[in-house]
């Protein structure tokens, strides 16, 4: 696709869709690092002007890269229905449609027709406020053991990581997080040691804690999918199967996965769940993490900008009907997102493109110490994503992940954001939390005995 536009008396010509999409992107240090960003603000606006007049069918007709991510996504597209419903619209017209109050009623029939590139293109014509406004009404409910995503719900992943996977240390963190109402989305541990034995041991412990305390949630250990599959083969139960995914086949290879492996993994976990229908109320069994910059970091971006790569990663995840997708937005570092402004923007974009495609989007609102962001900017981004209707955020002890070495949102932050925004935990969990903790965070005087005994057992190695 070719196109040109004049801005400030200068004419800018573009030779391909990938170039238009990249140069129309809001500023991202990763696009600069990749050498594909607009060279000036005028050129950025020229690209946006061209993009606004591009028809959605033109975007579908010009795949950005010929790989299995593209082919798998396009093979699921109902082209005749797409052509009738959306193909003739320009991106500018589609933006207005998405922002109109009536969109929420037609969206259930349209979301399957929104390709990643269309979602990304639309985001590039939106302000931050647009990105929030557009997603407020788009609710995506999913069910594994429990359901999240209902109106009025802001869920949280409890992230009780430990630098050496000490089970008692993890259990103490879980207990403290539960007391603040975190953990309704899932209790998810990033393992420090990527061995089958160790991952299986954490999975068994999560299983035991969740079952014994009858916590309405699901457990997950975020090891490589092959490690989790090996644990399942040993008879360990996995409520959710996790994997990081990226927006190109080459970047997925750098993650050690491809379409066939993930199909096999999804089949394995579904088979386990279908054999236990009393435990699993719903069919959603996968948990994916994405984040802008992952394709560039493995030098597998093919000249595609990082927002479009992110949308493609989510589109790839959509093939597996996930329970949750988490954009780990501020984790990757300043060479991809330079500062708080870029991280906040990327978080809102990632949430928007995912929701528009019908995905259960959450966000790890976070920062590393070498990026120009801090606790204050993280607080602001949390409120914006909460207002946008984000399905879930992270709950990390004091926001300080002692294993991965970065700062995320804390147990306290989750409770505070829910109070400010008038949100509740997922209903089943909320009821459990009120029964167990009286709705208040725990302190030394209010440790429920059953939880205390279980932690004591773990400390004693039982």
């Amino acid at each position, binding site marked *: 696709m070719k196109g040109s536009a004049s801005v400030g008396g200068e004419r800018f010509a573009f030779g391909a869709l990938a170039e238009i999409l990249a140069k129309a992107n809001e500023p991202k240090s990763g696009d600069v*690092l990749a050498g594909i960003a607009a060279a000036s603000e005028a050129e950025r606006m020229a690209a946006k002007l061209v993009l606004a007049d591009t028809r959605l069918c033109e975007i579908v007709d010009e795949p950005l890269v010929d790989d299995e991510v593209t082919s798998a996504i396009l093979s699921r597209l109902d082209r005749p229905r797409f052509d009738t419903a959306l193909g003739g619209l320009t991106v500018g017209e589609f933006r207005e449609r998405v922002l109109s109050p009536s969109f929420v009623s037609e969206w259930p029939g349209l979301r399957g027709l929104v390709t990643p590139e269309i979602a990304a293109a639309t985001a590039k014509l939106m302000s931050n406020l647009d990105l929030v406004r557009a997603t407020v009404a788009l609710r995506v409910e999913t069910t594994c053991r429990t359901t999240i995503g209902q109106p009025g719900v802001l869920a949280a992943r409890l992230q*009780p990581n430990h*630098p*050496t996977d*000490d089970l*008692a*240390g*993890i259990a*103490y*963190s879980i*207990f*403290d997080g539960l007391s*603040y109402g975190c953990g309704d989305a899932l209790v998810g541990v990033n*393992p*420090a*040691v*990527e061995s089958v034995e160790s991952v299986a041991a954490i999975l068994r412990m999560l299983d035991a804690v969740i079952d014994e*305390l*009858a*916590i309405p949630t699901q457990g997950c250990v975020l090891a490589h999918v092959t490690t989790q599959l090996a644990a399942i083969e040993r008879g360990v139960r996995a409520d959710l199967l996790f994997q990081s995914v990226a927006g190109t086949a080459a970047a997925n290879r750098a993650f050690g996965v491809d379409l066939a492996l993930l199909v096999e993994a999804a089949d394995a976990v579904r088979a386990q769940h279908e054999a236990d229908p009393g435990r699993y109320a719903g069919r959603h069994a996968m948990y994916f993490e994405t984040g802008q910059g992952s394709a560039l970091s493995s030098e597998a971006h093919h000249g595609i900008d990082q927002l479009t790569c992110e949308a493609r990663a989510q589109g790839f995840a959509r093939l597996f009907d996930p329970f949750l997708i988490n954009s780990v937005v501020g984790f990757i570092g300043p*060479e991809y997102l330079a500062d708080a402004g870029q991280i906040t923007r990327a978080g809102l974009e990632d949430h928007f493109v995912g929701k528009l495609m019908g995905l259960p989007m959450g966000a790890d609102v976070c920062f*590393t*110490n*070498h*990026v120009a962001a801090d*606790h204050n900017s993280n607080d602001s981004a949390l409120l914006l994503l909460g207002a946008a209707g984000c399905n879930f955020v992270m709950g990390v*002890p*004091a926001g*300080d992940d*002692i*294993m*991965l*070495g*970065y*700062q995320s949102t*804390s147990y*306290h932050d989750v*409770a*505070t954001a829910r*109070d400010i925004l008038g949100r509740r935990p997922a209903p089943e969990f909320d009821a*459990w939390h009120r*029964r*167990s*903790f009286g709705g208040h*965070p*725990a*302190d*030394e*005087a*209010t*440790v*429920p*005995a*059953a*939880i*205390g*005994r279980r*932690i*004591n057992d773990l*400390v004693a190695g039982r």
Partner: protein
Amino acid sequence: MTGAAVTRADRAVGSLADPRVSAAQATPARLFLGSAGTSYRTGDLLRLRVDHALAKDALAAEVDADHPALREVAGRWGLIAVATHARSHREYLLRPDLGRRLDEDGIARIQQTATRGADLQVVLGDGLSPEALAVSGPAVAAGLRAEAVGLGWSFATPVFVRRARVGVLNDIGIHTACRVAVLLIGERPGLQTHRSLSAYLAFRPKAGDTDAERNLVCNIQPDGISVRAAVERITSLMADLVAAGTSGITVKERLGRAELTAGNPVRACPGKIP
């Protein structure tokens, strides 16, 4: 057990009389903080911000060849000070590719003055925590020199690289033709520690090598892996690399279970510098 059995009237006893104390023995996570409303209590908020402030200051600290720690190294074995293409701290953060390449002056200086074809080339890099290099770098370098002498290995004049990324090892290998290079570099500061040093090992580093061709000993810091333990592990790995004739993922460090549980995560070296 059902959820209904867990009630506020049903209290824990024993070691959970003070869960904060028990938890502190099991995890460095900041737990059972209590709260003001739903927010942190003032002391906890300020402790978090102090740790963040120290991390940010460690990141922004500058260490150059005149720093006392590097003058100590220079005084004992000489020191070749060079820099990468990153011209400012901001450029260093935003352009990791520039921090992986020696600039022209640096290449010329190494070609003129470095030891060629040495058995061990120690490289000192500021990385994302120059403080970590200043605190632990000279002692680790001294330990490695003593071990090299013991092994009968030749020990090259150390090189200090300013605004260095791990990938600069490739340029070092190209221009010194060393057998084993050990890069001691400051890691991204975290809230738990802001002066953690890592040692990246490469056997005959060359253009195109990635982390897959390197071995790593991380978390070298006063509250983590001691200098003595680090020197032992690096030395053992150096010998393994030479025996294998290669470095990287095919050479696994032989660690006992005790080392694994002694605050030494295998994968989790926080803030690995790409």
